[in-house]
């Protein structure tokens, strides 16, 4: 910089020094617009998160001042038999829910993409559950799962002479039953995103593949799925986070004994909720949220790493 300024008088005329250079003006605008979200995230997101980390090291119970107890909450958590159970439940939701919901929504989106007739209506139909309140939906599904004369599913099964299933009252079937509801609730959103992804693939790729002699299945495997990968990665991460944080469906479908029967459906978020708002052990609940946070972070990063673009 200095050198060009020294050279300047000989060549071109000295430009007047401006304080508001183009760069400074741009920076002003950039920071002006960034200020709002930065403040928002600082106050609403990062501060509470940081605070939770600190609380997890205390014995706060809402009544007295929190006092520092080191890692006691964590040692207690990892020794807690309930935690092991909740941990397994949470991962059951994740490991079954994410693949099933993704495969289902892809199949539906793929089919819808080819339908020319009533396309908008069908799409709206699939999207409806996504905008319905979780509690209303959960109650409808509770009704579906009731014993024979009332519950449609058992009614249907008994029509074929199949014995009654206890669904929500069975320790084996309650978790899958709730998962079905959760999958159904999230399906609409995933379908819309998959359809947008499918639409974005130019038609000539398919035409070229057809000319090269590929069948439908080969086109799906060699062209559609690879080109849809960015969409799929997004949905895998998004849906995994959703299942790891599952709460609404469980809470609303097991109101008599939240997370029951016998804790067989209880996910981590429900445990946190109960620790915080039934037992008022805020420090302990904070430690649990920190664990949840870590799990979310690790799972998301792991998925992004596994599904990264290899060149």
């Amino acid at each position, binding site marked *: 910089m200095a050198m060009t300024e020294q050279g300047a008088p000989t060549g071109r005329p000295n430009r007047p020094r401006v304080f508001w250079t183009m760069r400074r003006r741009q920076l002003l605008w950039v920071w002006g617009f960034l200020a709002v979200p930065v403040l928002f995230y600082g106050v609403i997101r990062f501060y509470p998160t940081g605070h939770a980390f600190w609380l997890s090291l205390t014995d706060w119970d809402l009544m007295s001042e929190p006092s520092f107890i080191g890692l006691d909450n964590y040692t207690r958590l990892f020794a807690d038999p309930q935690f092991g159970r909740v941990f397994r439940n949470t991962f059951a939701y994740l490991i079954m829910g994410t693949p099933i919901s993704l495969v289902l929504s892809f199949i539906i989106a793929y089919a819808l993409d080819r339908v020319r007739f009533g396309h908008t209506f069908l799409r709206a139909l699939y999207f409806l559950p996504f905008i319905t309140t979780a509690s209303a939906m959960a109650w409808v599904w509770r009704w579906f799962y009731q014993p024979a004369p009332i519950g449609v599913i058992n009614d249907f099964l008994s029509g074929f002479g199949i014995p009654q299933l206890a669904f929500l009252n069975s320790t084996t079937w309650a978790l899958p039953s709730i998962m079905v509801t959760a999958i159904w609730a999230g399906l609409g959103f995933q379908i819309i995103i998959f359809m947008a992804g499918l639409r974005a693939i130019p038609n000539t790729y398919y035409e070229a593949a*057809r*000319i*090269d002699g590929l069948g439908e299945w080969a086109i799906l495997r060699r062209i559609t799925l690879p080109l849809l990968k960015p969409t799929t990665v997004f949905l895998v991460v998004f849906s995994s986070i959703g299942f790891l944080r599952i709460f609404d469906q469980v809470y609303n479908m097991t109101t008599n004994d939240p997370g029951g029967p016998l804790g067989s459906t209880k996910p981590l978020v429900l445990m946190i909720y109960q620790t915080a708002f039934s037992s008022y052990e805020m420090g302990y609940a904070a430690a649990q949220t920190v664990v949840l946070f870590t799990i979310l972070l690790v799972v998301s990063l792991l998925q992004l790493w596994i599904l990264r673009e290899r060149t």
Partner: protein
Amino acid sequence: MATIALRNLVKSYGKTDVIHGINLDIADGEFVVFVGPSGCGKSTTLRMIAGLEEISGGEILIGNEVVNELDPKRRNIAMVFQNYAIYPHMTVRQNIAFGLYTSPLSREEKDARVTEAATMLGLTALLDRRPAALSGGQRQRVAIGRAMVRDPAAFLFDEPLSNLDAQLRAQMRIEIKRLHQRLGTTIVYVTHDQVEAMTMADRIVVMRDGHILQSGTPTEIYEAPVNVFTAQFIGSPSMNLLPAAEVGGRIVAQSGGPLLVGLRPHDLVAGEGEGAFSISGEVTAVEPLGPETLVHFQTEGRTVIATAPARMVPAIGSTIQASAAAGALYLFDAKTEQAMGRR
């Protein structure tokens, strides 16, 4: 290898017809070039031959078999698209090899073909790149490579050279011609570029508004265009047209005359000369090309282009005379624009 025949081929989108019942017979091993202005239906015709576009009427025969209801893959045709259509998630090598996806060849044979095609197209150094890291011309060559490795009944090319620079285009023209000579496969080739059409074609098919105006060898089209449109479309710079009349056995320029006289700029020579036809006018522009100079001048309210020897560069504003020898005049009916022979 196969013949291709179009019989009263019609294509309509809803109520609008874009191809109006065209007929064409392409011999086995023939190199046919479709030319015509943008939107005249060249791509549509090609896509119907490939099986990508449904046929609204008429028939397409490939090797004497009606293929109207046949899937593209069962027609055994290779196609290079106007917008390349090479897959972004595959390397250049994989893209080219994709043409052999259904081929029963062994892995070694496939590799050998890919290598051969890459060498011919100058892509050897780029084989492991993704299309995102290629220039437009390189992508187009990959698309050509994907078609080349196959052994199809016919090749269809939709403006394959449109994104290349002049030098590469000239080179690729030769490569495609050589490919044709080596394989002897039937080729249907679409282009805007009349130089491409003239240099590559065994036969040129001139299209306009979904009709075939004329089909013939490049020389036939150049020497005996059937109407004004074809005459002006083929040849560069394009043919001059002047209203004319026949007076005492001679053709003379005359505004409002019953004839149109067509003169190729190369036949209209500037300078004092006795010819079958001569005109004069005020020079408006000159384009020295090296071996010769193109002189634009104004006559009968129209701009006419004549050629002058290289060293003769007339001043703008000066009056110039130009004449054409006997046999160089193309006559057309002024009303119907149909050809009336040469004089």
